[in-house]
Structure formats: C-alpha cells, structure tokens
C-alpha cells in the first residue's frame, strides 16, 4: 500500500476526484506550475490542464467570489487560500455570500464548493502564517469545517468534502503536513463529515483535540502510564460530533480539551458548554482547557511560549486527576 504524508494524500484525493468528475476545477495562487507553496496541487496542472487548475491573480476575495459564481453555475470549485492569514480578505465572500446562498434563495441556489487552507503554527514563518482562525468559520451558519490530523483521514475527508452539498472549509494543519507517513489506500473511501474518531480508548480521562494537536496529544499520552486516557480526534469542527464526546464523558467523568487556537470562544469553550448541557452530572472534576493564550501568535523566536505542547497536556491530565472528587 502507498505510504503517504498529508500533502500527498490530499493531492491523491484531488487527482482521483478530478478524474471522476470533470466539473471539478481548482483555483488558487501558485497552484499551477508551482504546485502550490506546499506542493499539494503538484502535477495536477500537467494532468488536467490550465483550464481546470487555475493559477489566479493574487486576490483572495476574488478567488472565493469567483469560485462561488462557478459553483452557482454547476461546477465544483476547490479553492486554495495560501495561508490562513490570507483568508481574511475573503471573509466577506465566505460569510456574507457562500454560507448564506442556500438560505437566501430557499434552496434554489447552493454553493457546494470547498475552500482548502493550511492552518496553525509549526513552520517558523512570518506573521499571519501561524494562526488558528477556525472559530470564525465554526461560528458561521451554513459552513462545514473539517480538519484532518493524519494522511488517511485527509484523503477520506477531502473526498467527502468534495461530494458534500454544502460549502466546506477544509483546514490542513501545516505542522503535520509532512510529519506523518501512513498507509493510504489507493482505492476510494470516504470518511464522513461530522464524525469524530476515538484514536485510543481509555477509562479515566477524555482528551479531546483536533488537527496538528492530535499528534502532540497522542505523544503526550505515551508518557502517561498509570492513567487510562481516551483520545478523541474531532476530525470535523462543524458540525461537532457531540454524541461521541458525551459517550466518552459519561464513561470517564474527566475531560481535557486541547487546541492551538486562542482560548476565548475557542472550540473548547463550545465543547464544555455541550458537556454542561448533556453530561453535567457525569463530571467528576472541572474540565481543563489547554489552548493558545489570548494574544497574537508571537513571531517564531517566541512562538514556543504560545503553542501548546506535550507537557502542558500532561499537566492538564494531571490536574483533572488531582481535582477529581
């Protein structure tokens, strides 16, 4: 079987889906000959030509707005926004139009497009290249938000995103773009949007995370010998798989949630609210959050102060055990 990293797995998903469906077109900055700055679209312009793999002018609002128009006409555009910081000029198109057209037209028009974008820190780059802005999109009705943590999931989730009838923001955690190699089947498979993955079963503490932090959390768990941790990879941030979370919390009674995004109104806050609503009486300790601080992500020299790490996750697990009734 193929051993692929996330970059290669997404590339394979795009390649196979484009072969299957001639209405899929890719749009983005430097995605043609250059293959994208992370090489996710490598060789696709050679395979499918410039009419389907479109090197656009440098204009993110334009990329999304034009993709939206193409989707309205029945094409299946997959737009790449080069870095998460560059999503911001496209927010007007995404939040005011892409997410709303189904409701605005009462189903007459829909925008089943995919917006791919790298996310998070880990490449020691300049400002706007290490951010985690998922909350803006999770907060917006009409959008689905997907974030794989490994190559296998990346392929299966991408195919689901492409075939989804609604707009999907597909975040690719750049810290683990090439950090994990995994067996990825060549044949078609789908991973459903809205379903979390229990990475490791356990009985004492539920550890919930997503994206690049899954690797960090998984490694942290390897250092914990005397406590049984259940590790959940959300895979999808909108809609969140509440059922899997609640089932686990009812078993363990103790919860740690980890993400790289800032703390205030981060995904962890929403999960805590849902646990509060649906499993409050199962809780044996206050829920711990391991998140970024409520500050601008520092430039690379000091970024380690901001990012979550294995130690912080271990400390949080430690704390919920100590605080347990």
């Amino acid at each position: 079987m193929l051993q692929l990293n996330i970059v290669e797995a997404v590339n394979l998903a795009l390649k196979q889906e484009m072969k299957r469906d001639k209405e899929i077109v890719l749009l983005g900055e430097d995605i043609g000959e250059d293959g994208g700055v992370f090489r996710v679209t490598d060789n696709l312009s050679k395979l499918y030509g410039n009419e389907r793999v479109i090197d656009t002018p440098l204009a993110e609002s334009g990329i999304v707005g034009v993709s939206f128009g193409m989707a309205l006409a029945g094409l299946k555009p997959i737009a790449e926004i080069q870095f998460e910081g560059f999503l911001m000029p496209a927010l007007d198109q995404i939040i005011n139009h892409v997410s709303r057209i189904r409701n605005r037209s009462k189903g007459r028009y829909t925008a089943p497009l995919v917006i791919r974008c790298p996310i998070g820190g880990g490449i020691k780059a300049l400002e706007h290249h290490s951010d985690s802005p998922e909350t803006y999109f999770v907060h917006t009705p009409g959008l689905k938000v997907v974030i794989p943590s490994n190559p296998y999931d990346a392929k299966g989730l991408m195919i689901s995103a492409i075939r989804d009838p609604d707009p999907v923001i597909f975040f690719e955690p750049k810290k683990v773009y090439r950090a994990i190699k995994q067996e990825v089947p060549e044949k078609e498979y789908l991973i459903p949007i809205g379903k979390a993955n229990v990475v490791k079963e356990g009985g004492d503490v539920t550890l919930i995370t997503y994206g690049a932090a899954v690797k960090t959390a998984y490694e942290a768990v390897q250092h914990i010998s005397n406590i049984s941790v259940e590790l959940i990879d959300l895979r999808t941030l909108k809609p969140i798989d509440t059922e899997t979370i609640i089932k686990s919390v009812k078993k363990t009674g103790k919860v740690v949630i980890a993400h790289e995004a800032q703390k205030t109104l981060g995904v962890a806050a929403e999960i805590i609210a849902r646990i509060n609503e649906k499993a409050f009486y199962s809780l044996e300790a206050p829920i711990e959050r391991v998140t970024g601080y409520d500050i601008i992500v520092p430039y690379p020299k000091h970024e380690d102060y901001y990012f979550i790490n294995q130690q912080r996750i271990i400390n949080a697990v430690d704390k919920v055990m100590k605080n347990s009734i």
Partner: protein
Amino acid sequence: MKKVLERFQVEYLQILNENGNCDKKLMPSLTKKQIKEMYEYMVLTRVFDDKALKLQRQGRLGTYAPTRGQEASQIGSVFAVQDDDMVFPAFRENGVYLARKMPMELLFQFWAGDERGMNIPKNVNMFPVAITVGAQPLHAVGYAIALKYKKMKAAAVTYFGDGATSEGDFHEAMNFAGVYKAPCVFICQNNQYAISVPVEEQTASRTLAQKAIAYGFDGIKVDGNDPFAVYKATYDALRKARSGKGPTLIECFTYRIGDHTTSDDAKKYRKEKEVKEWEKKDPILRLKKYMKKAGMFSERYENEVKKIAEGLVEKAVAKAESIQRLKPEEIFNYTYASLTEELKEQKEQIKLENFTIAEKKKSAGKNTSVVGELEEA
C-alpha cells in the same frame, strides 16, 4: 451618436541606460555626493541581503524575502522621500528601511523572528513590515488624507509589488486617493513575479501604471533598475502631492533575481536563462558604469564602500544576536494598552507553566506528578 470620451497615454521613463549612459536633458539635479550616497546605500542593501541569506541558511534567521535586483527601485525612490514623509512598506523593502536610517540590527532581529525588531525608532517615519499583500496602500491613503486635514506639507509613500495590484484593497486605495486628492505616492515594484505567477498572467493591462488612469490620476512606468529615473519620478510625484495636486502611481519595472522568499524555489517556474539576462541589467553595475564615466569611481572607492558596508552588517548581526529572548510573560505586553483581567490571569499561568518545566528539570527524580513528566527537546 458615438464619440470618444477619453484616450490615455502612459509614459515610460529611463534616464540611465544599461551601458551607464545618461540622458542629460532628463537628468534630475543630484550632486556628486548624493549620487555616491545612492551607490553606497545600494551596496549596503546588497551586502545586507547577501548576509541575511547566509544567516538564513545557517538557521540564524527565519523565512527571508531577498531584495537583490531591486536596489535601484528602492534606493532611487526613497532618496526623494523627506524625513517627515511617512513610508508604508510591504515586506521586501530592506533597502528602504536602511536608507530611512532604521537601525540595521532591528531588521536582522525582525527577520530572525523577533517582533521587537519592528519597534521602529521615533525618528524613523516608517511603518512596520506588512506581510499580507496589498493592505498597506489603504493605510497610506488614510495617513495622507490626515496630513491634508492637518494642513501639513508632508506626504505618504507606499510600496507594494505587482501581485498586490490584483487585490481589492489596492483598488479601493487608489479610488480613495483619487477622490480625496490624497498626497500619496504609490510605488509599485513590478519585479514581474508574484511568487510563481508572471505579471502577464496577473493582469490583462499592458502596464500597471495605467491602472491609475481609471481612478483619475497619473501613472508612470519607469525603468526600475535605473536609480535616476526612479528618483526623478518619485521626486516629481512628491512635489505634486505636496502642492495639493493629488496622488501618483509609479510602476518601477525591475526583476526579482532571488527566490520569492527562502521558502520558495524559483527554479520550479522560471528559466535560468531569463535570470541570467536580468543579472546583466544589475542596477548597481549600471550606476557603477555611470560613475566611472563621470570620474566618480575608483577601485579603491569600490573596495572601501564594500568594506564599510560589511563592517556595518557584521556589527548589526552581532548586536541583534546578543539580545536575550523575552521572558514568557512578556509576550502579553502589547495586546492592549493595559492588561485585561483575563490576560493578567493567563500571564500568571504562563509563569507557572514554565516554572513547572524548569522546576521538574531541576528536581529530576523527585517527581510529584500523578501522571509522569516529560522533557521536550
């Protein structure tokens, strides 16, 4: 009825050609001292750039955007800018910063990933590096409108690349500038590539300069490897701005000899032959040819300028690298004018997090943790 309402023309300006010969009729009034100073700053920019690339390869700087090839566009233009004018750069304007007397160690500090490098001294009227493409022209226009409101004689100058002319923000900036006759000069360094996308695929316009016409003001295209042409165009545009006659767009036609940044590999999308052709048009070489003919240049002078530049660069690197890392709790300090209650709490928490790690390292073996400990590389 059908009639022509508007026709337009776009001028191209070259004063110093590739052989170092100068069109005397067009030559701006520059003293020998000024010309020498221009050369010296162009060399300093080149030496800075070479050193930065070396440091990046050694892991002593982060991602770096090289300047090589664009020295005339940067130094030629900034030489016409006065101290009280405000400059809004993009991210490749190392030469502009140096000529504005930005302490060089701050630039090295910035490119090494330390945000304190953008704590620009009060006497340098320049804004921090703008990483997202095309946002800063709007800021320059706003600044310019404020200068006009305050009846100040200064102007705002903004730098951006060919790629930026595709962003909506750029067009909004141009439109505001035209409507309000803002004392603003738009300097587009057309280095012909926005990462991998050549300018011909960026726009269907024959020139970038002509985009100004649609917004009701002049655009001019200049040979961006000719420091005299760039200087003259900027000087004229600033004089026009200060006299209340509004904005100008200057397209400096140049070439990015290096990669987009150190994370890019231009060989993937650019022919080696094309780069070689443009290396022959090196702006420093061109100015050198002129100075030789004008009797302003000797081997001794050349070596001396290089040596002084290298000395300044080495000193700046040493100074930048001697600066201690921030303490963890210091990363909170510039989020607001004063810390909010929640940030105060998080600031205390970060002290504890790091204290925990340090403490555990010190007392290895005396682990009080329930779950175990971890030393991270």
